[in-house]
């Protein structure tokens, strides 16, 4: 049986649409991370202890006065809070320029069973006094 060009094209199109869909679904499954507030994190951990040591992101503000930097070993320790729960964070590396003890941060990392979030990445949002970078 000979297929018409239209049918062949539809088949090709279906393959493209299918692979886009597949790549997206598997991408989300493999790389998706929960984005939680400290309050949500503490509830999640209480419900499901296996969530310890799972990669995730936490958005919160830095608790004022808790930032300690050890420049020589490039270690940064601080606490984050959303008003309902607090977590200590440890991060090795260079924090962004905008990081200080009065910013909103997004911490990417894992909560270990000692109750500390070991961050692999810290992103800081600019303070509210100035609008941040318009475009990037």
């Amino acid at each position: 049986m000979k297929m018409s060009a239209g049918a062949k094209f539809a088949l090709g199109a279906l393959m493209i649409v299918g692979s886009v869909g597949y790549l997206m679904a598997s991408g989300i499954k493999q790389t998706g991370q929960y984005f939680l507030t400290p309050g949500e994190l503490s509830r999640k951990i209480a419900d499901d202890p296996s969530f310890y040591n799972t990669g995730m992101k936490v958005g919160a503000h830095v608790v004022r006065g808790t930032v300690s930097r050890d420049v020589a070993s490039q270690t940064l320790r601080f606490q984050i809070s959303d008003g309902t729960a607090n977590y200590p964070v440890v991060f090795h590396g260079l924090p962004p320029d905008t990081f200080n003890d009065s910013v909103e941060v997004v911490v990417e990392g894992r909560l270990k069973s000692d109750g500390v979030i070991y961050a692999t990445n810290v992103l800081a949002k600019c303070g509210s006094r100035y609008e941040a970078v318009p475009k990037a």
Partner: protein
Amino acid sequence: MTILGTLALWVAFLLAIFGAVVGFLGGWKDRADLKRSARNAVFAMFGAMATAVFALEWALFHHDFNVEYVAAYTSRNLPIFYTWSALYAGQKGSLLFWATVLSLFGSLAQLLTAPRHRVYLPYVTGVVSTVAAFFILVMLAAANPFDRLAYTPLDGGGLNPQLQNPGMVFHPPMLYLGYISMTIPFAFAIAALLSRRLDSDWLVAIRKWTLVSWLFLSIGLVLGMWWAYVELGWGGYWAWDPVENAALLPWLTMTAFLHSVMIQEKRGMLKKWNLALVIGSWLLSIMGTFITRSGVISSVHSFTQSSVGYYFLVFLVGAAIASFTLYARRLPLLEAESRLESMVSREATFLFNNLLFVGIAFSVLWGTLFPILSEAVEGTKVTVGPPFFNQVNIPLGLGLLALTGIGPLIAWRRASLPNLRRQFAVPVTAGVFAMLLLLVIGMRDLSPMLTVGIGSFVVATVIQEFVRGTRARHRQYGEATALALARLVARNRRRYGGYVVHAGIVVLFIAFAGMAFKTETEATLRPGESATVKSPYGWTYTFTHLGISQYDQLNRQVTAATIEIRRNGKRVGLLTTEKRQHVDGLGRPTFQPSTAVGIRSDPLEDLYVVLGGVVNGTEQAVLRFTINPLVWWVWYGGMIVVLGGLIVMWPGGTPAVKRTQAGYAVRLVAEK
């Protein structure tokens, strides 16, 4: 001057409303007097907006810190270059800039539209005026750049140091110009729908405009990458941040349109698809503005949340409903004039190219909105980051790159086997050869290898096209090679300019692939100490920290580390990287410290050194050394793309395609 500014905004607002009403009415009733009034209203609106811009610049240059915007974004010690660009540093000023440029483009559309396309103009005026009215309304209601403070500060807050970079002076306006000029093709699309003149003529009217906005978006994207690379100091140029994605999305759909429009011109197919792409691209550009303004998606770049975002949301939803309702009602007028004849035809490859472009755009949109979507569906936010975008888009991008080479080689309608053999022999050999070469020198990573292989194939197709075209002219007209090449390009600007763009895209892809081999090392060094980093090419770099110097410069205090670089023991140069603390007029610190990256760039690799900080009071420095292969090519690839775009756009040359004739030929064949 703020009174003048606010007054000008009000005048412009009333003119926009008037232009919208009179424009639509004039088109609908076909009344010459109304059409003329609408046209004049657009010119007058541009005059009013230019006055408002003048008023804001006046306030900026005169340091009128009683004006909130001036106080928020400038200071007395800000270099004059950045005082000027503070016009679009903040939200309110950007809105002003938007509306002004829109009214300028609206006026240019009146002046530059060819006489035979003037029938669309009243509706175009109506659409442009409506969009402008919205922007001015947002300013007047929620974000007036001329708002005054209750007191007058002695000095302003100054401009965020990260914006004090030459890239930031040119990058936002380029991106805005791209976004804004997209309104003109959109307006023509709506005009074509309203006037029911849906033959291919309206496409000819917008061809240049779509190229203009595509070109500005491309320049804006490359400049944005450059700015992020040299200023932000994280070691890369693209992070798949929502704000970046928002700019990429309309670029993707516009690029798809620039290809599929050729099918409509040649074969009268894809009319519905093309209209949807034009409308969709414009909606995406508005959505981009909404995402960046509203803070609904957490982004490092996001603005403080403000009510402005919700104006945009309402406008976006309203515009989407209005445009697609109109579109749906006109669907019966958009039937294709011919059908796909073969899978092995240029049409088919263009269709696949379009599907891939839209597929990529969809995945980027989906990934960007995923936190909102997952929260709505499951109650918890799930985010996806660069790994998701890379995982999805590397295969799709490679498929697209392959089509870049395949498309131009395949004949329209139906390609024959000998034709395919003649066209593909050399390029395929080149691609396979390049991959074998990489295997021999020890490369084992699949996607960079495929990128180089497919890239070589595409470049070979481009060279083959140029060589064949030049030879043909040489034989036919006896022209010398150089003259034949120049005339070949000059007489077929669209085709050969397009090939140049393709070559630039290959360069970009290969440069992107280079980032797979990025290496990063952090070290805390005392003066005299060194760090050793192995480069992906096998060289050993030794970075020696020579010492810290501190000095004042312009509006900042600089702490600079000087690094000596040795490659395999041989000295290749010095690099400095700075930590800058910006200060106000009284020498007090403002903003957080910012970083000036030390970059040593050559075609093979970039050495990228960031000073993280200095251990209290000593000269011990925390440094990050990054080696980024092939970054140099991102900027030059971007330039090639822009050059190709300019060749395509250059006025004159390409005669308008005679669609009727093409359609006639097609029908003859179909009847056999």
